[in-house]
């Protein structure tokens, strides 16, 4: 049995272990890992998330048990101090000795602290470890106690510096970024994009100081300021240094491995150092005379080192390493890929800039106009993934390359996912290529996304690539001449739209009957709620009638929460609520000891109701004039409003009245997915109507209607359906649009995704709902009117019906409560005991 010792349990050291134990052959190795930090490896890339929740566990790459389960001996809080190459031993700071056959140095790097006078002062931090962040948090809290307007600076305006700037801003300190170069992110951005970025950052409250060389840090014990020139001083009480990294190469130096001139342990393309038994990977390794300060090359190095140690000599590091990056967290999109700056001799640049919207896009194209060489995106990086794929795979680009970056160019320029080369990595979590996905369909006979996912693992991790995998599966099936059927599940050989028509035409109102006549088996958690949604959308049946085919939340007309209790969300149409109603709600919440908050949808949510309390609470709310808010349903949620011309000095029309009217019109309507609305009194758009499935904005001369927007995981702005129409027309168009969506969308598809998939897009919707090109608007109008006329409050129905009420008990054979529900205190309210 051979021994592999890994020095450093950071991101790359961890990845090495993960890759090693994934191989059968690893059974022949004893693996020992040393980490100097007091905890197992964590995700440094997402370090800033620690500020939000201070949850170190959430950042763990793997829990301590993982190492045990995989027979890895993990020794933390113990630094390696020496390597004795002659007899293949290492010594730790506790003077313990260990022998190795292979030694892997994954010691990473540390923050570079420039030799400025006074850097040792209290209040000066670096940004690298959880301990650094804890120190900053504690110090910032102390500062703010003394001075609520305390200021903090970040030295360095690079990728990391900006992230640190956002972090100090989120800590409530006035943030300043100090950069030596005349522009931000000097390594990734050209000067124009850097200016656009600066404007954007200033607009969110960061103060930027460029071309500043810091002479000294002022202050007696603790920092009070930074001095740049004689009269050039910035008063700050805290400083975060983010001026680059230095490899932790001291072990290499002391045992005489070959080193770079400016540090770093030299490795070849096998990740071997000048001693064949010693490998170096990650931020300590100097490859191609470079230290790669990104995690992806580090992971690749880990992969190469594992392969080499296991004897797979053909696997070596690529000669060129992709340094494309996308800035995260800061609330502004910034990305650069390939060759961001380009000498005119090598190619041409296409640049789009719009400073009013803080938008800058640049792509660099080869001289013959055929290849994408690199680019920069500031303000909107939504095309980054696709552009990056085009660059990586040298895919052909449109004759007019500006199509790749011009706005209002909905997807057209890229063609389909089928244009990707076979070796393009579609699922980067599981490293699955387009070729593997397509082969799984053509060669292995998998015909659904589910089967392909099972066979290839694509889309099973973070799920971000699911839409692309789905497209690939469908397109491949089509290319085989197979009809691609959006089959609901194993129980119904129909698409949602087909089943919609069946239910409607044959007036089938009962799930069992639907199964008997058109399905097989007994159904599942996919087809049951889908059928329930159809019965609701077509017959306006409430969720009370066939309760066991409803989605979990609909079954009890409430959203289930962490500890099995529920939330209570009464409708507050348009967000308008009277003091009297507030008092009533407060009284009831108090009586049942419910946690209370204002929801993100402009209404009030009461949390922590036990199952048996739900009818009691609702009975009292209904008596006070409230009705269900259907926060649980795939149905209308809220119509958000701004105060509009009633109060606001800019308002052009009464947005609150309109929002209330429209919320009451659409309440109770069930749809393929939830839908939300917004009404703003003018284009300042305080109601965020363009972030909703439908939105109205008052303009001079009427209302503008927008459709197909949402927030959520893939935010999308709504697009214009009609301009300057009166209220009645606006309602008519939206009625038709919604019914058309309800009829034709796939299950769990929001309006934005529906619009995106709809052939002809927004122009087609206009044709259908305004020009009546299908001749169906009369029918759509009638269907909507039926829904409006037959609305019932489900909770009123439930509390009045003893049979429905009886569903709300925890046990069938006892009136006892569930003893396992636990709460803990939270800021004078309560919350569920957190999950382990």
């Amino acid at each position, binding site marked *: 049995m051979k021994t592999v010792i890994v020095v450093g349990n950071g991101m790359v050291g961890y990845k090495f272990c993960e890759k090693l134990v994934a191989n059968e052959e690893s059974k022949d190795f004893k693996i020992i890992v040393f980490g100097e930090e007091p905890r197992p490896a964590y995700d440094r890339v997402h370090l800033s998330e620690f500020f939000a929740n201070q949850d170190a566990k959430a950042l763990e790459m793997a829990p301590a048990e993982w190492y045990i389960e995989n027979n890895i001996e993990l020794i933390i809080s113990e630094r390696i101090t020496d390597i004795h190459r002659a007899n293949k031993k290492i010594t730790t700071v506790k003077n313990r000795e260990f022998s190795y056959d292979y030694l892997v140095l994954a010691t990473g790097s540390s923050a570079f602290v420039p030799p400025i006078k006074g850097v040792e002062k209290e209040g000066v931090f670096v940004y690298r470890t959880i301990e650094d962040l804890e120190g900053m948090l504690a110090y910032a809290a102390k500062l703010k106690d003394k001075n609520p307007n305390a200021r903090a600076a970040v030295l360095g305006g690079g990728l990391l510096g900006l992230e640190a700037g956002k972090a100090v801003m989120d800590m409530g300190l006035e943030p300043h970024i100090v950069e030596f170069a005349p522009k931000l992110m000097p390594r990734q951005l050209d000067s124009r994009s850097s200016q656009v970025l600066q404007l954007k950052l200033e607009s969110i409250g960061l103060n930027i100081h460029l071309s500043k060389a810091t002479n000294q840090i002022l202050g007696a014990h603790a920092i009070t300021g930074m001095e740049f020139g004689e009269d050039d001083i910035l008063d700050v009480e805290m400083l975060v240094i983010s001026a680059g990294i230095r490899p932790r190469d001291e072990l290499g130096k002391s045992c005489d491995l070959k080193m770079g001139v400016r540090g770093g342990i030299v490795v070849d393309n096998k990740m071997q150092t000048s001693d064949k038994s010693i490998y170096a990977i990650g931020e300590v390794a100097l490859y191609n005379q470079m230290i790669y300060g990104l995690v992806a090359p580090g992971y690749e190095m880990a992969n190469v080192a594992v392969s080499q140690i296991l004897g797979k000599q053909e696997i070596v590091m690529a000669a060129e390493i992709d340094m494309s990056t996308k800035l995260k967290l800061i609330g502004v999109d910034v990305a650069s890929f390939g060759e961001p700056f380009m000498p005119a001799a090598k190619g041409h640049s296409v640049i789009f800039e719009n400073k009013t919207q803080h938008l800058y896009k640049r792509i660099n194209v080869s001289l013959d106009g055929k290849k994408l060489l690199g680019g920069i995106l500031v303000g909107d990086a939504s095309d980054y993934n696709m552009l990056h794929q085009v660059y990586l795979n040298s895919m052909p680009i449109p004759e007019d390359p500006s199509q790749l970056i011009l706005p209002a160019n909905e997807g057209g320029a890229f063609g389909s996912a089928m244009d990707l080369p076979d070796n393009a990595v579609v699922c980067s979590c599981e490293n699955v290529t387009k070729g593997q996905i397509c082969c799984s369909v053509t060669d292995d006979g998998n015909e659904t996304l589910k089967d392909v996912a099972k066979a290839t693992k694509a889309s099973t991790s973070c799920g971000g690539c699911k839409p692309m995998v789905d497209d690939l599966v469908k397109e491949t099936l089509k290319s085989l001449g197979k009809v691609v059927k959006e089959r609901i599940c194993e129980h119904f050989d129909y698409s949602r739209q087909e089943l919609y028509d069946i239910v409607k035409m044959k007036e089938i109102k009962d799930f069992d009957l639907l199964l008997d006549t058109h399905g097989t088996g007994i159904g599942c958690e996919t087809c049951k709620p889908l059928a329930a949604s159809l019965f609701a959308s077509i017959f306006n049946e409430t969720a009370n009638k066939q309760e*066991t085919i409803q989605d979990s939340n609909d079954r009890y007309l409430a959203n289930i929460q962490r500890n099995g209790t529920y939330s209570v969300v009464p409708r507050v149409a348009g967000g308008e609520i009277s003091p009297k109603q507030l008092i009533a709600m407060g009284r009831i919440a108090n009586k049942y000891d419910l946690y209370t908050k204002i929801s993100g949808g402009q209404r009030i949510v009461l949390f922590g109701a036990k199952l048996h309390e739900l009818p009691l609470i609702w009975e009292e709310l209904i008596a006070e004039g409230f009705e269900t808010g259907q926060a649980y349903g795939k149905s209308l949620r809220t119509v958000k409003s701004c105060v509009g011309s009633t109060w606001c000095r800019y308002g052009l029309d009464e947005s609150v009245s309109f929002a209330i009217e429209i919320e009451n019109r659409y309440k109770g309507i069930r749809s393929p997915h939830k839908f939300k609305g917004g009404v703003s009194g003018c284009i300042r758009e305080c109601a965020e109507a363009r972030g909703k499935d439908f939105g109205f904005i008052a303009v001079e001369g009427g209302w503008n209607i927008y459709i197909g927007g949402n927030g959520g995981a893939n935010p999308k702005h709504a697009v214009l359906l009609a301009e300057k129409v009166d209220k009645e027309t606006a309602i008519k168009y939206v009625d038709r649009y919604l019914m058309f969506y309800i009829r034709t969308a796939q299950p769990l598809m929001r309006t934005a995704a529906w619009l995106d998939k709809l052939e002809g897009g927004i122009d087609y919707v206009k044709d259908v709902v305004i020009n009546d090109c299908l001749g169906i608007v009369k029918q759509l109008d009638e269907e909507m009117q039926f829904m409006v006329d037959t609305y019932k409050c489900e909770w009123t129905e439930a509390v009045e019906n003893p049979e429905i009420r009886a569903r709300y008990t925890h046990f069938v054979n006892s009136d006892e409560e569930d003893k396992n529900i636990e709460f803990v205190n939270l800021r004078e309210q309560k919350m569920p005991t957190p999950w382990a």
Partner: protein
Amino acid sequence: MLDTLLQDYSTVQLERVKVWFKAAKINKFPKNGGACVKYKDKQIAVFNFSRENKWYACQNLCPHKMEMVLSRGMIGEDMGTPKVACPMHKKTFSLDTGENLNGDLDSIATYPVKIEDNFVYIGFSE
């Protein structure tokens, strides 16, 4: 405390049943749905597959986040295997074997059910 709860539940095979616990009348259980039965300190989810006229029982505790919620889940079938989907995150479990069908969570404990005189009985070994 909830972690130790898991130890209260282990599968009972029909031939090991010592006690048939008379839980409740069959009409107390929703058609094609579930309800929760209390037996000593245990919570048992009982499911009425009325379409097939079959009954199943399992622990009410979901091993994913240790919440007492499975009886409130939706039932169905996966290629002939009867299953329940947890209402919290839709993890599905076979009601035949207790196996987690869409992940690698620990299996849940299952219990025999019999119907006599319109009453539901659950089999326990203690």
